[in-house]
């Protein structure tokens, strides 16, 4: 569970990840957009679980990664918050942003009665056969939100800063988070939204930046999940014989079983990005091998005890040609398979960056939290 009452915004470790992990990737994406021809350049779209303070949004605004509209609005930012009143609080700080109240997973996985989920289905129209009751309205609103959320895709930067467990003990395997991610990566293939000078033909994203955050755990993680992680790692070692030696040299585990039993955190740190990379591959994307997946880890102490946060950052590319233009049953593209192998190897060799207070305070982080808050006050002067 997330640490209730923890001052997330002030956490220097988290800010280190923002500035040293997220920001360089996002800036690179902005540069790539700036290098495009005039008709292809556009304002980047950003999806986040930014929390009330919207620190990440303002950081990207200061860095000019997300440019504001002519009306000085953050209308290219979309966010979710499970605390319904937190959405409105956040919108005060990033006016114009599209905020969704409610549980992200519930909304994404809402069981659409029409099954086909026609994008333009009018879920909010008065139903002809149901009474105007709370349960009816609730259902309408969830389906409506889901429809609107899908319409908001795709995003150039997706920041899934979940601050909770990716694998929940009570979730039926493979877990709601994994299922939701699968859908999200599918929706990332939706055509891009209109922008000035946009080419007439429908355009889809060919790449995006993905940030994913989770806690290590839970302590009672079910066997199905650990088996999944173990199988992924065993497959890798089976196909790349030298990985076993690397694993032993770097962590001291002779095999995956030993890694799981004696070095659970490392097991988790290796396994989760593998799951992400596999999910992306399955949905016709792949992790760019140039930078691979960067992992940041830090420990967080709060009244409920200590837990470890993991932040993964990666650039994601679309398999080319996309699936619909490949021969039936032809599998993934060669480029994607090579990149996948390279990314996995790198995970084994590179390890993660353990962020500590010493590291976080050893350098000046730009923009600082103070700079970001000053920028935020421009939009919400009462913010203190």
């Amino acid at each position, binding site marked *: 569970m997330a640490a209730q009452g923890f001052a997330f915004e002030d956490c220097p470790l988290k800010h280190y990840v923002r500035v040293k992990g997220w920001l360089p990737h996002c800036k690179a994406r902005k540069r790539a957009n700036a290098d495009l021809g005039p008709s292809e350049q556009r304002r980047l779209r950003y999806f986040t679980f930014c929390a009330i303070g919207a620190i990440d949004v303002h950081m990207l605004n200061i860095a000019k990664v997300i440019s504001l*509209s002519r*009306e*000085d*609005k953050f*209308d290219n930012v979309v966010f979710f918050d499970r605390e*319904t*009143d937190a*959405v*409105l609080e956040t*919108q*005060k700080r990033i*006016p*114009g942003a*599209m*905020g*969704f*109240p409610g549980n992200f997973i519930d909304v994404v996985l809402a069981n659409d009665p029409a099954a086909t989920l026609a994008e333009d289905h*009018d*879920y*909010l*129209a*008065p139903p002809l056969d149901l*009474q*105007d*009751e*709370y349960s009816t*309205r*609730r259902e*309408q*609103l969830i389906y*409506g*939100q889901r429809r*609107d959320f899908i319409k908001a895709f795709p995003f150039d930067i997706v920041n899934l800063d979940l601050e909770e467990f990716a694998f929940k003990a009570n979730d039926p395997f493979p877990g709601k988070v994994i299922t939701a991610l699968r859908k999200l990566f599918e929706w990332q293939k939706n055509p891009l939204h209109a922008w000035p000078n946009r080419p007439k033909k429908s355009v889809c994203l060919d790449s995006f930046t993905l940030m994913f955050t989770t806690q290590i755990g839970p302590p009672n993680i079910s066997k199905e999940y650990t088996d999944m992680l173990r199988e992924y790692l065993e497959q890798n070692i089976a196909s790349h014989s030298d990985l076993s030696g690397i694993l032993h040299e770097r962590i001291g585990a002779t095999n995956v079983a030993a890694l799981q039993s004696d070095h659970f955190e490392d097991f988790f740190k290796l396994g989760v990005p593998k799951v992400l990379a596999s999910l992306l591959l399955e949905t016709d994307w792949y992790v760019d091998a140039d930078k691979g997946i960067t992992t940041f880890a830090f420990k967080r102490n709060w009244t409920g005890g200590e837990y470890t946060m993991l932040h993964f950052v990666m650039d994601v590319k679309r398999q080319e040609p996309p699936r619909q233009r490949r021969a039936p049953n032809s599998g993934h593209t060669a480029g994607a398979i090579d990149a996948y192998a390279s990314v996995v190897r790198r995970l084994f060799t590179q390890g993660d960056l353990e962020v500590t207070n010493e590291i976080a305070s050893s350098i000046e982080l730009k923009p600082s939290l103070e700079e970001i808050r000053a920028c935020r006050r421009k*939009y*919400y002067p*009462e913010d203190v």
Partner: protein
Amino acid sequence: MPKIHVHEKALAHLSRGLYRSPASALRELVSNGWDANATVVRISTNYPNFYQLAVEDNGDGFSAEEFARLMGGGIGNSEKRPAAKKMKYGRPIIGRLGIGMLGIAQICGSFTVTSKMKDGTGFRAKVKLYDLLKEKLDTNDSSVVSSSSDQQFEEVDVGVYDFEEQYDPNKANFGTAIVTDDVHPAFVRAFQLSLKFEKFRKPPSQWQKAIDIVSGVRSIQELGDYWRLLWELAASCPVPYVSANCLPQKLISDEQKLLESYNFKVFVDSLELKKPIHLKGNPAGYTIRRIQPQHLTPYGRNLRFHGYIIVQEGAQLKPDELRGLLIRIKNVAIGYYDPGMLDYRYNEGPRSRWLTGEIYATEGLEDALNIDRDSFNRFHPQFRAMQEYVHSVLHEKVFPEVYKQIEVRSSDRALTKRTERTSHLTQVLSDVSTKPVSVRSVTKSSDYAPAEVSVKRESKQLQVVIPDEADILTKKSNRQLASSILALFEVAMNEPTDTRRREVFRRSLLSLLSKW
């Protein structure tokens, strides 16, 4: 004599259908913020999704006990906040906590109220209103209607509330916040659809720009429900104007000073609202009438008001919603601009679409309000007294001046046109003649002499003398044309051959008519 009671059900019905628009319901919550000495009220709509709605102020807040009292039967009770309540910034008290809070029930079925007072205490409560209340009331459903213990009257419940035990006032802001938990899908849908309207424009970050946008449409409805909400709130809340110069002759500068002194701001989705009127640069100018402070005493009760009426000469006001008269009581608008001008009985045709005005009632009129605070009982003596005064101003001062201005403009226009046509005639004659042409008109020598055209060929120019229009015996509107054609005819007749005469006349006539 037996006493007459009003059935509790009536009030229960009111809790679900009091206001005619979301803005009217929200305006009541803004008024609550005003009365609570708030300096800022923020309305958040979750634009562009509209799945939530919140109104919060940074005012004095109120206690859990007061909330419980309101929910336990104080809603709609005439018992107002303590009369001794100290208002800051010289504000008059609007005084209507209660039914306004439940007004949000027209938009949602449940909501959360959080309030923190200056002493640091506070509460958070979730309110859930019963579904299908009207049907249940009509069928005396026992879940909402029950008899009192003494069987004297029926008790009606409209919903339930629950205090949140884990509420920590230290983490809350001072003031009161009302946040909807489930906005009705009909509201969400309407607002979402309105963003797809052809003329919809993204709301700007400054109100002046918003005024520019609404001034570009015939009706706010072309911009959709979201803009209507912005506009209606801006028109009805006690917020300042864009500037003291937003109307000619500093018509509202005194009012502006007063409004600014109240130190009260209302934001909707980070856009600070100002009054939605800004008139300037009309080519034909403005007719202005100040309504000096009036003190009337119908049935011995004080009625004080002042205001202004302004007519944008010759040009329809945009948007339409700005047409008519708006009455404010203690700075809060009652309804919106009334295009019927308080049932004005004269038909002024298109002139009435040029007129706007505001009447500020500083004392009285409150008893003439209907319960929705959006309209008046039109036969209330105080309303009638004000109405009569305003109508006399309109009928005796404003519209006569407007008609005078119309006449001036018409005669100016006619003169300009006549000059232009004479110049055109000269040009046409010059084109068919080898010499420069001069045209002048003369009055005929006697009533019996025919109105004739003469042409004199002089060595350097052709002099055409046409009769004064008044001397040409045909329809007034055709006189200048007739005299011009006669001139063309006479000039053509000076040509040497029939063919040539016919050709010159035909050419010059067509040329004349091409720009007539």
